[in-house]
């Protein structure tokens, strides 16, 4: 049951991710990226992190993808620019192949010791909030400065000069 759920979600994630980078129409890319994010949120729920799943859906599917969709629908002509040159395309597959081989080799050699069992950790709001506002309070406050500077920067960039 759980295994089937994991396989289904993984297949959905990989297929929609492939559809993001392969579809010609950018609007289809955005829609498949939303599907990909929803399936990743399903993975988060499976990994007993429901708060992160909800935040993921709100932030990504709710805010970021709407932003993408707005920009595409406002700006983009239907004529899509194509792919890069053949050298870059083959080079990219080579790079990704090296990455995959590295991960597989790390697992084969047993350098990567991964635990077998889930200890009882729950990613509920209260436990996560205790860590976030206790141990990581100062980075959390600093991130608000990042947001403020981003808002100022976006307004400056968006102004017609």
């Amino acid at each position: 049951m759980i295994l089937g759920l994991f396989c289904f979600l993984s297949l959905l994630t990989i297929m929609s991710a492939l559809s993001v980078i392969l579809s010609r129409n950018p609007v289809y890319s955005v829609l498949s990226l939303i599907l990909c994010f929803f399936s990743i949120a399903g993975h988060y729920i499976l990994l007993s992190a429901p708060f992160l799943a909800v935040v993921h859906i709100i932030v990504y599917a709710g805010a970021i993808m709407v932003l993408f969709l707005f920009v595409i629908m406002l700006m983009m002509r239907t004529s899509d620019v194509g792919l890069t040159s053949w050298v870059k395309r083959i080079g990219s597959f080579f790079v990704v192949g090296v990455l995959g081989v590295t991960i597989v080799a790390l697992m084969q050699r047993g350098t990567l010791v991964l635990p077998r069992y889930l200890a009882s950790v729950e990613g509920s709001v209260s436990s996560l909030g205790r860590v976030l506002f206790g141990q990581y309070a100062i980075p959390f406050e600093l991130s608000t400065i990042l947001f403020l500077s981003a808002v100022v920067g976006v307004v400056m960039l968006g102004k017609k000069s």
Partner: protein
Amino acid sequence: MTWTQVIPAEWYLILGTALFGIGLIGVLIRRNVVIVLMSIELMLNAINLILVSSSAYHANLSAQVFVFFIMMVAAVEVSVGLAIFTVIYRRKESTDIDALNELKG
């Protein structure tokens, strides 16, 4: 028998690596600026997935806090990136990333 005895931790690592690889291929082969930004989002989400899985398997909530921070930085990055893209589009009338081959605006 809980579910973690069913799903090994390596599977999440393989899934995250595959997602990261797809995002990397997208960054390298697409010429549309918006799709390149979306592929970067895909790579960030692959890292998020690996972090959440390691948080679950190691029983450490710090990784989930890191995922939280990565989400914040991703939101900021997308908003600033799309603002820069609109400025570029206004000047160049093109969504091609190869049109951005000069430092002088």
